[in-house]
């Protein structure tokens, strides 16, 4: 799950990581009141869950209440990477001396956390990693051992010049680490981590991604969920315990199991078709789930044909067949459906469907070729 910069800064604030005062508004005229709180030179930043705000015109400076209202009006009218800007954040414009980068994420290969840091902050870090990888330093933290403080200081010394700054950065790293463990973050990033007046290091931007598996432990974080991260169909799917991702093709897919669902999409593409979605109905075999899945898929006007691919293990093919027949009674399905059932109780499932005039395939490649021909 992704959260906005202002939400990430609220979490930073809770953990004592230095951030500026901020005001979030969704109406341009509210910028005037915000200015009275923040002083007369502010930065106005679009709050969207994608990168590249600066280049898209989503960050502006304002030196008067009028300018702040105007900047807010312009940014709130923007659409950045297809996402309309609904909120802007205002904060005092900082006098930046130098920009650094700090990021803490999971190193899947080493099964440890990895701290990345650089003197070249304020730029696109993924670009930096490709073009000037030597400018990013790395330091591993194994949660089984905690932070090796001497080792951390050695790497901080290569980036920060004075003992005072090293001390501030070490303190921030400790807090980022605590936040990561306690809130189940998959990425915590400060870019830029800026040196401002008074020799202070501040998190001028903040990015946090959270592990979906850990959110149940953190009701405060769950409240930060932003509906715009997901399509309406994705939200409804989640409420129905279906794993769903929207795609741009015209063949709706219902599959059990994530790996098989991905492979089914790949094979559709291989045979010249285009999947409209990824959908995993999960390991249970509740007929209602099949009905819900068909409802969600059929709401997409692009869908010209549907492929149901089930390999029964825990999932029973007769339950899937029951769900399909229930759906036929309750929704008007106008597009052709290709059904492939195999595994637990496939014989029973196939009989139930062939009685009603469906053709049920056994072989996956054959089923995919049929559905591609219909689309």
């Amino acid at each position, binding site marked *: 799950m992704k959260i906005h910069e202002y939400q990430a800064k609220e979490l930073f604030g809770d953990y004592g990581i230095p951030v500026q005062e901020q005001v979030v508004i969704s109406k341009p005229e509210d910028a005037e009141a915000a200015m009275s709180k923040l002083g007369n030179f502010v930065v106005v930043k679009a709050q969207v869950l994608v990168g590249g705000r600066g280049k898209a015109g989503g960050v502006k400076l304002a030196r008067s209440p009028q300018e702040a209202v105007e900047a807010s009006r312009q940014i709130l009218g923007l659409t950045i990477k297809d996402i309309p800007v609904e909120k802007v954040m205002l904060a005092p414009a900082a006098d930046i001396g130098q920009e650094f980068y700090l990021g803490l994420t999971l190193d899947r290969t080493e099964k440890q956390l990895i701290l990345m840091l650089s003197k070249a902050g304020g730029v696109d870090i993924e670009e930096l990693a490709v073009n000037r990888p030597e400018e990013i330093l790395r330091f591993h933290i194994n*949660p089984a051992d905690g932070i090796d403080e001497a080792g951390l200081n050695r790497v901080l010394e290569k980036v920060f010049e004075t003992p005072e700054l090293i001390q501030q950065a070490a303190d921030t790293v400790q807090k980022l680490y605590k936040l990561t463990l306690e809130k189940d973050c998959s990425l915590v990033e400060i870019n830029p981590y800026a040196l401002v007046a008074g020799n202070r290091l501040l998190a001028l931007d903040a990015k946090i991604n959270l592990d979906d598996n850990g959110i149940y432990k953190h009701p405060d974080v769950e409240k930060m969920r932003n509906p715009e991260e997901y399509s309406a169909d994705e939200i409804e799917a989640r409420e129905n315990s279906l794993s769903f991702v929207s795609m741009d093709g015209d063949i709706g897919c219902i599959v059990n*199991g*994530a790996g098989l669902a991905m492979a089914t*999409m790949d094979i559709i593409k291989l045979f010249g078709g285009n999947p409209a979605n990824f959908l995993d109905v999960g390991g249970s075999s509740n007929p209602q789930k099949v009905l819900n899945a068909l409802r969600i898929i059929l709401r997409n006007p692009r869908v010209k044909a549907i492929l149901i691919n089930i390999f029964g293990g825990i999932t029973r093919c007769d339950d899937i067949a029951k769900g399909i027949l229930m759906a036929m009674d309750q929704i008007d399905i106008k597009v052709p459906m290709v059904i492939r059932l195999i595994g637990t109780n496939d014989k029973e499932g196939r009989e139930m469907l062939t009685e009603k005039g469906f053709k049920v395939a056994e072989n996956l490649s054959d089923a995919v070729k049929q559905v591609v021909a219909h689309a």
Partner: protein
Amino acid sequence: MSILIDEKTNVIVQGITGRDGSFHARTMVADGTKIVGGVTPGKGGQKVDDIPVYNGVKEAMDATRVDVSVIFVPAKFASAAIKEAADAGVPLIICITEGVPVMEMVENYHYVKRKGLRLVGPNCPGLISPGKCKIGIMPARIHKQGNIGVISRSGTLTYEVVYNLTTAGMGQSTCIGIGGDPVIGSNFIDMLELFEKDPDTAGVVVIGEIGGEDEEAAAEHIKNNMTKPVVAFISGRTAPKGKRMGHAGAIISGGKGTPEAKIKAFAAANVPVADTPDQIPGLLAERVK
């Protein structure tokens, strides 16, 4: 032979009185697995069919020989269950549970490893050595005893591949689902090493997917260490970037974890990558003597 589990393996089920635990304990018994006990705190002394239930893993270990513990408890209790099995010294711990937070898994991984024990999963279908022992949730009847090893990050996709192998007359020595999460107890390389040493495995299928760099590492390992032929399959070629595709580990981020990089790595290791699961038996037949 087979790897990790065979007809002599003694198994306990953590969470045996739960809905999933009891269902799969019964299915495993029906499939010929020696389930010697179950664990549910507070329910010691009860029985599930003929299987004795213990309060803890240690209590079960004191009562009988335990080679493997398989975990079916809900996600919020999974880390405690893994650590309990590790503290008791169970040599092989298999966690079927889906939804364990990654940061907990990072800790669990090192916890088990430092005790010199082996963890498979979480979020996996388990293991089967057909005709000998099944520890997990896969349908046993699609399998057939034979000499092909299967290693996979997926569940139902593995069934699809196994079904194609069995239909083509190619049996399996052992099939292992290593799990679909970003941090898992055992990776492809751990299993490839075991299959390379197993005299009754003649060839291996590796079923990978987008996300992480385990497939790339596996390809490098195969190039340098494997004498037996390997065939690969990669799912998620059509997945959009940055979206989690069902499995917590199936996400492409920061230019890493792409299907292209994985296919390229396998090609460099002379490992053919099948476009569809039904091509796998043919690719194996050309290479396995």
